[in-house]
């Protein structure tokens, strides 16, 4: 564990990786419109916003293969990293209109371009240019985290965990999820979070899946948006929250039992612990996602996680990114995904006893040279 965090070094390391990847693929530049991609390649920040507003005021990055400093187009120059030369920080280009798209096109070097996403005016403007998918460039860069990146995730998660201790004291019959959100949001900013990135989830789980809400697949329905429904004694609440610290996401999951857990809740949590511990037994460089899937599923009836989600996912400037483990991409995908030092995994298996609801939590691990280290606290079982 290190308290060392050097943001300028982190940005330099990430930029170098992207430049090397462009060079290796013979690409002239990466043009990035997705805000997590800009956050990664440049280290710039814009205010967190609803998707519509975020799209309209999006930052854009151009990373060139010559290794020169990236170019940033932004309405929020104060969010640009301090070392970025002033002549590399430009006014925002509105990608919702042809004028902005044409201006962006005019700023690109000749040659093949990697691009992550189009607005429709940009799609029209790029017609005839040789375009490849920038996720193929960024993905391999992002998947292995430097020590600075891991420290950002650790700090994001620590803020989230600490805020949840404050929230926990408010969980009681008659309280509403919306009130818990208020306590949580107040606290994360006091603790230094840059932003909140997902509407905090406090979902009251039904005892049986058949009790609803309706499930199209027959599986547990999760997550659903927070409502002002009042909690009742004995309610089992699945919590899922995420904040941003220096561009990096936290991902916190736990289970509250209103009025306090009983033995069946502790038993479920113990089974969850066993699933994660079986995964940790095999978690090291060279292991595959398939190995984790098999470890988690051993001794279980079926696969103990939500089938439309995953057993585990990566985390970084996106709250869920590669490596994805146990998705519907299938066994071949999992077996081909080999873990390497610096990869970060958020484990989120689920224990479900139809009739008695279930237990869900999340735990974040980084793969080290010879095993793993925790970036989150080790889950301590049901709360409340």
């Amino acid at each position, binding site marked *: 564990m290190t308290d060392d965090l050097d943001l300028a070094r982190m940005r330099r390391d990430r930029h170098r990786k992207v430049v090397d990847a462009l060079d290796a693929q013979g690409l002239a530049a990466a043009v990035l419109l997705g805000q997590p991609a800009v956050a990664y390649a440049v280290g710039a920040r814009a205010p967190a916003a*609803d998707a519509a507003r975020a799209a309209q005021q999006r930052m854009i990055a151009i990373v060139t293969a010559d290794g020169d400093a990236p170019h940033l187009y932004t309405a929020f120059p104060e969010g640009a990293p301090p070392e970025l030369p002033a002549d590399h920080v430009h006014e925002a280009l509105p990608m919702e209109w042809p004028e902005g798209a044409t201006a962006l096109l005019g700023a690109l070097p000749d040659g093949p371009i990697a691009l992550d996403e189009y607005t*429709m005016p940009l799609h029209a403007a790029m017609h005839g240019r040789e375009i490849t998918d920038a996720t193929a460039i960024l993905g391999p860069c992002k998947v292995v985290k430097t020590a600075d990146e891991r420290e950002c995730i650790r700090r994001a998660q620590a803020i989230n965990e600490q805020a949840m201790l404050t929230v926990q004291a408010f969980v009681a019959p008659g309280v509403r999820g919306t009130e818990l959100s208020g306590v949580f949001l107040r606290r994360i900013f006091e603790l*230094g979070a840059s932003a909140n990135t997902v509407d905090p989830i406090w979902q009251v789980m039904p005892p049986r899946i058949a009790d609803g809400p309706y499930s199209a697949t027959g599986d547990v329905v999760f997550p659903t948006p927070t409502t002002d429904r009042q909690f009742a004694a004995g309610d089992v609440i699945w919590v899922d929250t995420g904040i941003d610290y220096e561009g990096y996401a936290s991902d916190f999951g736990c289970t509250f039992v209103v009025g306090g857990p009983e033995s069946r809740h502790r038993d479920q949590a113990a089974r969850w612990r066993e699933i994660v511990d079986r995964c940790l037994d095999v978690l090291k460089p060279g292991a595959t996602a398939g190995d984790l899937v098999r470890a988690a599923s051993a001794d279980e009836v079926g696969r103990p996680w939500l089938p*439309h989600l995953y057993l585990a996912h990566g985390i970084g400037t996106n709250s869920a990114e590669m490596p994805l483990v146990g998705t519907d991409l299938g066994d071949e995908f999992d077996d081909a995904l080999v873990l390497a030092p610096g990869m970060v995994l958020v484990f989120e298996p689920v224990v479900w006893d139809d009739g008695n609801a279930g237990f869900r939590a999340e735990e974040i691990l980084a793969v080290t040279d010879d095993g793993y280290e925790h970036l989150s606290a080790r889950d301590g079982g049901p709360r409340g």
Partner: protein
Amino acid sequence: MAEGLTRALDEMARQDVDVLVLGREGNARFVSGATRLWLAGTRPFAPGCVVVRETGAVHLMSATDFGVPAEVPRARLYPMSWNPVNVMGAVAAIAGVSSARRIGVDGLTPLFEQLFTATFPGAHLADGEAVMRAARRVKSAREIESIRAAISVAEDAFAVTAEALRPGVRELELKGVFEERMCRSGTTTPAFEGAFCVVDDEPVRRLASDRVIVDGDLVAMSAGVLLDGWEGSLARTRRCGAQTTEDRDRRSRWAAQWTPLVDRCRAGARVGDLRVSAGASIHGVGLGAEALEDSAALEPGMVVQLELEANGVLGADTLLVGDDGAEVLTAFPYAAGGD
């Protein structure tokens, strides 16, 4: 049929689009009325919602009908998948999609562009965002009521935040004060990360820092909420501590630019002309922020956010455009004490 869907179908007919495949959540919400999980930030395009002109039906990517109105029956929910090929397969299986000549999309990725071309080789990809923008632009009476309700939540939270503007508070703590109060009104989704920034230079910063606010600081405050998806937001500039004569001067100089600007926000005004004023910006307000092109003319029933940053004062109000001028929907006082 939901009124949003009717307007989208009309606009599809006008722009000759057979099928809309929507990735932007505001667009999906407009046609379906569905509440799905709110996430901050941009998302790459993925087919989250499909509208078929021939059948008039909306289809949603969802594993549950929680938050989905009855107008979208369970049979019109299609499953999520991490495999984009499966997602496109589910879209192609929707009645009326495979025969479409023109498919409107509100964004693309290189991968989905390939998949569309491979799945619908005869179809042309049209600008679905242009369709949705036109359908959403002029608000119905019910939508205006929804925006008014959102503004009232935002103004309540803004008032509490203005109260908390005391020496010793850090800028970023004010974000938490605003959002906590918003949650007490029953909505947990901000329109954007609030800006609570001490004014030193222009342009005014929009990213609150951990700077401690001291007595005498002038603070630009900009914040908003989404209530049932509808945006209510505003901006004001307040002094921490006692007001000074200079404040009144600043504000009257600001108002000297602001008042004529508001006066020009009437039917027929060209958006680009309003933007020409130094420090002025304008965008549409509805299910979140809505983009307005320079060439657009204001129409009765449009709701816009007008913002002016001048003389170290940031102010923004939400306006309902009418034939004979605009109604200012935000009522929060410009200065402490109700000025």
